[in-house]
C-alpha cells in the first residue's frame, strides 16, 4: 500500500487537523515555558553560565571560588564552612559557592567578573592560578551571530525571536542534563557536585565527611605577598599577569578582597609549570594585583588525595577545603 492513495474521507482530515493543532499547542506551551524560565535555559547552554546561575540561586554567598576543574573538583564550600565553625569561630556561619568549571579560561574569568561582582555580600573571592586557567582557549557562550548578508543568515536572525530556537543549545544532551541542577538542586549545591548522584545526594541533605587527621602544617601553602614581585617576565607572561591583575582589580574596586590560589598537584603530574616556570608569574601577579598568591602546587602530598594526577579526589577535597579555610581566616582576620 502506498502512502498516497485514494482521496480520504473527512475523519482523516479531522485527524490531521487534530495532529497539527495538538503539535502547535505543545510547541506554543514549550515556547512559553522557555520564555518563563529564559534565564535558566540561557544558563544551561554553557557550563560557565550554569555555574553563575546556580550561584545566583543561593540566597547568600560570602566566599566564592573561581577556576578550572581543578578547583571545581578540589573545593567543597560546605567543608570550608564547617572548618570555620570548628576552627575559626569568628567566621562561623559564612556560606560559599564553588563557581569553577571545566575548561575555564582567563577570558571566562574576565567575562564573568562583571556579573559576579554585582552579587551583594561577597566577602572574598579566590581565583585559581594555574597553567590551564592561563592557557585554556576562550569558549564563548554567545555563538557567532548569523551572517545577515545572506538570506539564510537573515532568516536565522529572525528565527532567534523564537526562544526555543534562541536557546536551542540548552537542549543538547550535555546541556539538558544541567536543567535539573538549575531548576531543582541549585540552592543545595556547593558547586563541586557535577554528577547527578552527587547533586541528588546534596539535595537530599547528604553531608560531606570532614578530613581525617587534617595536618594544617602539611597543607600550608607558600604565600607570595604583593611585595614579592619585580621578576622579569616574557612579554606574553607580562600580558597574562596584567589580565589576572585586571580581573582582581574589578572585585577589589567593589571592596571585595581577592586572593589567588594554585591548587595542589600530585608529584607524578608532569610537566607542571606551576611548580617550575610559573613561579615568577605568580610573584608578578601578586605584585601587580596587590593580592596574595597561595601556592599549593608544590606541596608534597600523597597520591591518595588525588583522583588523577592533577585533580583532587574526595579525601583531597576535604583537606584542601580545610586548608583554604585556614588561609581565608588568616587574611580576613577571622572576621
Amino acid at each position: 500500500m502506498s502512502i498516497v492513495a485514494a482521496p480520504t474521507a473527512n475523519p482523516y482530515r479531522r485527524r490531521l487537523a487534530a495532529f497539527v493543532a495538538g503539535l502547535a499547542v505543545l510547541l506554543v506551551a514549550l515556547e512559553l515555558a522557555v520564555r518563563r524560565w529564559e534565564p535558566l535555559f540561557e544558563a544551561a547552554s554553557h557550563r560557565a553560565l550554569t555555574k553563575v546561575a546556580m550561584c545566583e540561586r543561593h540566597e547568600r554567598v560570602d566566599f566564592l571560588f573561581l577556576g578550572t576543574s581543578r578547583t571545581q573538583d578540589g573545593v567543597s564550600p560546605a567543608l570550608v564552612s564547617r572548618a570555620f565553625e570548628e576552627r575559626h569561630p569568628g567566621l562561623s556561619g559564612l556560606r560559599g559557592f564553588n563557581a569553577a568549571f571545566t575548561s575555564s579560561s582567563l577570558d571566562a574569568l574576565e567575562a564573568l567578573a562583571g556579573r559576579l561582582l554585582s552579587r551583594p555580600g561577597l566577602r572574598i573571592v579566590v581565583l585559581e592560578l594555574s597553567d590551564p586557567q592561563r592557557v585554556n582557549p576562550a569558549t564563548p557562550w554567545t555563538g557567532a551571530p548569523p551572517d545577515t548578508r545572506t538570506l539564510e543568515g537573515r532568516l536565522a536572525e529572525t528565527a532567534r525571536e523564537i526562544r526555543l530556537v534562541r536557546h536551542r543549545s540548552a537542549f543538547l544532551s550535555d546541556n539538558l542534563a544541567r536543567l535539573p541542577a538549575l531548576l531543582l538542586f541549585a540552592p543545595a549545591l556547593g558547586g563541586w557536585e557535577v554528577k547527578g548522584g552527587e547533586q541528588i545526594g546534596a539535595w537530599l541533605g547528604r553531608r560531606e565527611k570532614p578530613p581525617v587527621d587534617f595536618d594544617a602544617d602539611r597543607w600550608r601553602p607558600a604565600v607570595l605577598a604583593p611585595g614579592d614581585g619585580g621578576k622579569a617576565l616574557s612579554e606574553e607572561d607580562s600580558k597574562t599577569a596584567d589580565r589576572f591583575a585586571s580581573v582582581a582589580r574589578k572585585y577589589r574596586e567593589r571592596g571585595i578582597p581577592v586572593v589567588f590560589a594554585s591548587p595542589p598537584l600530585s608529584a607524578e603530574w608532569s610537566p607542571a609549570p606551576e611548580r617550575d616556570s610559573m613561579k615568577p608569574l605568580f610573584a608578578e601577579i601578586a605584585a601587580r594585583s596587590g593580592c596574595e598568591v597561595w601556592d599549593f602546587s608544590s606541596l608534597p602530598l600523597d597520591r591518595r588525595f588525588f583522583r588523577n594526577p592533577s585533580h583532587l579526589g574526595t579525601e583531597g577535597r576535604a583537606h584542601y577545603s580545610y586548608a583554604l579555610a585556614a588561609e581565608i581566616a588568616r587574611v580576613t582576620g577571622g572576621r
Partner: protein
Amino acid sequence: MLFNSLAFLVLLVPALALYWSLPWHRARLGVLFVASLLFYSAHHWPSAFLLLGTIGFNHVAGRLQDRHRSRILLAVAVCVNLSLLFWFKYAAFVADNVNALLGLAGASLAVPRPPVFLPLGISFFTFQVVAYQVDVHRGEVRAEPSLLRFAVFKCFFPQLIAGPIVRAHYFLPQLQAKRPFDAAGFHQGLWLVLAGMALKIGVADVLAQFADEAFRSPGSLTTVGAWTGLYAYAVQLLADFWGYSTTAVGLAALFGFHLPFNFDLPYLAQGIQEFWRRWHITLSVWFRDYLYIPLGGNRRHRDLNLLATMTVAGLWHGAGWNFLLWGFGHGLWLVLERHAPGLPAQWNPRLRTVLKTVLVFHGVCLLWVLFRAPSTSDALAYLGRLLLPPYGTSAVPGALSGWLLAFLLLQKPLDWTFRERRFAGLRLPAQWGLSLAAGYLILAYAGARIDFIYFTF
C-alpha cells in the same frame, strides 16, 4: 538549497499553499516546476541552464524515439546525457590519470585539466533520463507529450538532487491528472519530513564529528578507536542518506505524490546481495535493469557481469580510484557469496542469522573505508589501523556509544513508522510524542548544517 536550511522552508510553505489552493492541474504543475527551478538555482544558478537544456533535449529525443524506435537515436540520446556526466564528473579524473601515465612514460605532453565544477545531482538526473530514453525505446512507456509534465518529472525538487531515482512508468502517470488532497498521505508525509530531518540532523550530523575526527588522523588511532570511528561513519552515512530519502518521500507526499523508499534496514542484511536489495534501492534497480541485465545478467558471464556492474556503480559514486576499488570490492564479494558455502545448516538458526548479520555489517564497514577516505593511500592507512598490529584500546566516548546503541535499537521501529500509513494510524498522543522527539533532535542539533553526503555524487 538544502532541505535542512531555513530558506527551504520559505520556499516550501508558500509552494504547498499555492499548489493546494489552485484548482487547475496545469497551474499546479507550473508551481512544482517553478519551485523546483528555484530550489535548484539557489545552489548555483548557472546549473539551472544545464538542467533546462537536458529537459528540452530529452523531451525532444523521447518524442522522436517514440515515433521512430531507433537504436541510433537511443545511442545519441544516451551518449549526450552520459557525455555531460562524464565531462562534469570524470574529465578531470581522466586527465589527471592520463597525465600521470604520460609522466611515467617520460612524455613532456600534458592533457589540460578541465576547470569544471560538479552540478548538483547530475549523477541522479542523468540516470533518470537515461532510463527514460531506454524505457521509451523498449516501448515500456510512451514518451511524455507535455513538456511541462516532462519537466516536472525531470526536476521534481524532492528527488532532483539525490534521488530516489524515479522511473517514468512510476512517476509520469502520477502527473497525468490533478491529485486529490489526501489527508492521511499528507499526515504521513509530515512525519516522514520530520523524521527524515531528525535522522540527518540528530543522528548523521552528530556522528559526523566522530567519524571526521577518526578519518582526519588514522595514524593516531587505537584499534578500538578506529573501529568505533568506522561504526560512526557507517551509521552517519546511512542516517544521512536514509534521512534525505525519507524527507524526499515525505515532501512528495505533501504534494500528493508517491516516491519509492530507498532503504530497507540495510545493516540488518544477512548477505551482500541482500544488502544491495536494501541499500539505495532505486540505484541498485537501475544498475540491474540498465547495465547488469543488458550485459547478460544471470544468463551468461554472470560473475563478470557482477564485477563490471559493481565497479561502474563504484565509479558512479565518485571519480576516484578508491570508489572504483570500493565498487570492485562489492562485486568481488557478490561473486564470492554466490560460490562460497553458507554457514553449516545444523547451527542454531538464530545464531546463524546473528552471525551473518554481524559479518555482513563488518564487511560493509571495511569497504566503507574506501568510500570515506580521501584517497586510496589514506584508506589503506585506516584499514591498517583496523586490522594490523599494534592493537590498542581506548575509551569509547559515552556520547558515541549512546548514539550508536540508540540507532541500533531504534532503526527498526522507526522504519516501521515510515511504511504505508502507520504513523498516521497511530494514536494521537503517540504521534505527538514521536514528533516532539524528532523536533527535539532537529532543534537541538541543527547548528552543524552539514551538506548531505550524496549531494557530492
